[in-house]
């Protein structure tokens, strides 16, 4: 009996000791472990993402002059529309590595525009810049390099600034400016709190020169979102997890919309006549930009070609049209002594029954077929008009001077 009691006492004292241990929770050990396991598991996930090429879609970084620009030497993989995985070169171009100085006899074409030029939706060798280089080399019988200066969401003002800051040093013989529907909106101030809409303005003065105005840019980088983007630039550049968490955040931000799906107004596509009025109203901005851009190119002995590219509404495959815009663009190109090509019109001639689906991807960017088509059209135009482009008529020896 005594033995039993003693055993019971021993057990109860053991229980007290155990509960005593339980009560004093090992905070230090827990904190250490939390840190260790967090770092280890995040590193493991980072490795998995590296091999899976996940979290590599963030490709724009803040820039106080241009608003934003692509990261240099960063691998970009995008899967939202088509598929593309690319290493941006050391200049932050969607291009293979290239030296600014060029070989004697080589012709260089610099293409400016937004995501339609940047072409993250198809393999690099299948975008129209690469295809144009091949086609022109064959047609002109001399080496042709086509440099892709396209950046998602860039306006013509940003294209011009990128020409001044970067493209000039590559001594292009011809500059192609891709113009698509919606360019007019992009040269006006945009206050949306997102990196993709931070654009400086170039306003025409009375003497037709342009005045650089970075109010929108500096306001954005003074805002909470702007500061966050600057302070997290390292993580955005190197961490795939960070990029993934960003995507997660975006999904969370759509949650109230998802919960109130019925209350969300359907997307309104502005009517053609409204867009025409809008373009007429603000055309003086585009006009001044193109004229100044062309003037500077001419001063650099570089020719300019304005290209009107087609665009469809996402998922609908209906061409976005604006007759006023096309006429205005033609007139501006003529006045700026630049060439003009209307790919939109050529596509309409090519396609029967308005079946544009094979030419565009789900989100309205160009499919491989469209890239092929644009390259063919451009190659024909450049080869036929080459005599009218002053830059291209320079003697070969002149290239070495640049």
């Amino acid at each position, binding site marked *: 009996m005594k033995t039993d009691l003693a055993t019971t006492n021993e057990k109860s004292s053991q229980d007290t000791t155990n509960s005593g241990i339980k009560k004093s929770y*090992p905070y230090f050990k827990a904190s250490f*472990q939390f840190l260790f396991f967090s770092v280890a598991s995040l590193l493991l996930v980072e490795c*998995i993402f590296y091999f899976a090429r996940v979290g590599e879609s963030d490709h724009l970084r803040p820039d106080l002059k241009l608003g934003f620009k692509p990261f240099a030497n960063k691998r970009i993989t995008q899967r939202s529309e088509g598929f593309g995985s690319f290493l941006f070169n050391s200049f932050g171009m969607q291009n293979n590595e290239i030296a600014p100085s060029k070989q004697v006899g080589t012709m260089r074409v610099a293409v400016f525009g937004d995501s339609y030029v940047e072409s993250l939706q198809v393999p690099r060798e299948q975008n129209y810049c690469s295809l144009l280089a091949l086609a022109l080399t064959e047609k002109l019988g001399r080496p042709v390099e086509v440099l892709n200066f396209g950046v998602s969401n860039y306006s013509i003002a940003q294209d011009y600034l990128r020409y001044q800051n970067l493209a000039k040093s590559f001594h292009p013989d011809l500059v192609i400016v891709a113009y698509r529907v919606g360019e007019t909106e992009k040269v006006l101030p945009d206050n949306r709190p997102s990196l993709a809409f931070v654009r400086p303005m170039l306003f025409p003065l009375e003497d037709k020169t342009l005045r650089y105005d970075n109010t929108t840019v500096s306001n954005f980088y003074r805002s909470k979102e702007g500061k966050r983007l600057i302070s997290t630039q390292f993580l955005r550049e190197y961490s795939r997890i960070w990029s993934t968490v960003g995507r997660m955040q975006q999904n*969370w931000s759509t949650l109230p919309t998802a919960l109130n799906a019925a209350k969300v107004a359907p997307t309104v596509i502005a009517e053609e006549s409204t867009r025409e009025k809008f373009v007429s109203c603000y055309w003086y901005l585009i006009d001044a930009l193109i004229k100044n851009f062309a003037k500077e190119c001419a001063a650099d002995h570089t020719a300019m070609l304005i290209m009107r590219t087609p665009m469809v509404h996402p998922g609908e495959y209906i061409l976005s049209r604006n007759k006023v815009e096309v006429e205005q663009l033609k007139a501006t190109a003529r006045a700026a002594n630049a060439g003009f090509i209307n790919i939109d019109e050529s596509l309409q001639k090519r396609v029967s029954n308005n079946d544009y689906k094979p030419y565009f991807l789900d989100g309205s960017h160009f499919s491989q077929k469209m890239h092929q088509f644009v390259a063919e059209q451009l190659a024909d135009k450049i080869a036929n008009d080459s005599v009218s482009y002053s830059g291209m008529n320079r003697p070969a020896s002149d290239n070495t001077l640049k």
Partner: protein
Amino acid sequence: MVASLLFNSLTYLLFLPLVVLVFWLLPHRFRSTFLLLASLYFYMSWLPIYGFLLVALIVTNYFLGQLIGSGKHSGRYLALGVIFNLTTLSYYKYANFAIESWNTATKIISPWLQVPTQSLSFPLQNILLPLGISFFVFEFIHYLTDVYKGGKPIANFVNFSLFASFFPSQIAGPIKRYQDFIKQLERPRIFSTEAIERGLRLILQGLFKKVAIADNLAPIVSAGFANTGSLGGLEAWIAACAFAGQIYCDFSGYTDMGRGSAIMLGFDLPDNFNWPYIAKNLPDFWKRWHISLSSWLRDYLYIPLGGSKCSLSRRHSNLIVTMLLGGLWHGAAWHYVVWGAFHGIGLVICHSYDSLIKKDTVLARNLTKFHTTSGGIALSALLTFLFVLVGWVFFRADTVNESLQVLQAMFSTQSSSCLTEALEKYPVAIAIAAYVIGRLLVDRKKQLEALLPQSLRASLAPLAPARIACYIAFFICAFGLSPAGKTPFIYFQF
């Protein structure tokens, strides 16, 4: 209509913790009512009007159960109940299938009858299949039948309603047995953090299977089955294998998430899968694949038809009929019927083979011996998998003709490029590797710990905060590997 509360949606990530929290905070007597309301909200979030259909079915079956339980004319009430449930299911699921089949038939018979086709054909109806109807109708039939066989009907209306509408198993099962569920519902439940963590682990595991593996396989499968006419040999095999992986990860992922959610609320739902692709033969496969459905078909179709306690030919025809109807249950289309018949024939062959090797002959003895060797087991598993794979082709293709094209392509030596982009774009291999690594780390925890020195073992045994860090990392991994856009669960359409 608000956004549907799919298990893989962000809204569900808000809904579940909220329900779990309120459920455990409430006194025991209110919990069932609260769960019922939450389950109805869950169902109505998809299409509110169909909530009334669910309620109507619950009320009717509840009273039918009481009438059967009272013992008077129970046979008639059972027949009425079964007919009522099957009619409801048939209207929503098979009405258009029947009309379409009839209209096709009229094209053949109208010239023979010398009547215009239009006068014999019917227009298709605009019917939207209510989510989960195939599952809860089967649960009702099981309930009524078991009550008829002497089981005690559920007296409490709330409990009965909850049995039918319990949200973790509402849309795609597992098909519950009321005896188990009510027992769990009536027993006092105690909150335990271990159960919450176990549930969370299952949810994460299911989420990973669904969003990181199944959803990455889905575009590869779609690309393959959208181009059945131009598939090369290798592509056809890849598409078929990808679908085998997709349907397993999709459905078992859903089940894991449902079971995990139930565990967090103190319930245990039956498991639906047990490594089906390593099954030794076809009967073994059906003991491992969609277990709750195959056991339902066995108990409420195969056995009532006579099961195996009848002549050999009758037994075989019972098997084929059961599988044929099982195929039709999956969807109102001929390719599902063919899939069911294919499995039925397979089961007949397996049973015949089984009878053959049980005979006392030299060949039978040698075959039995061979099947116990590792080579024999591997060969059986491989043949079973190949059979199942061919079956999946019938299941996935839109028509029988397309499935025959895929099967034909599987034997061709040509190649095509229709899967190239999808294979390059979606990181399936990495997702599978990540899942295997994750499972190994969890399943082989003890063996891995044994590799560490004794001194480190204690300090590295993860406490709750460390485990939470790992779960967060696992969630990020699943989310990161998932393709953009939400793919609905395959079994939702059934």
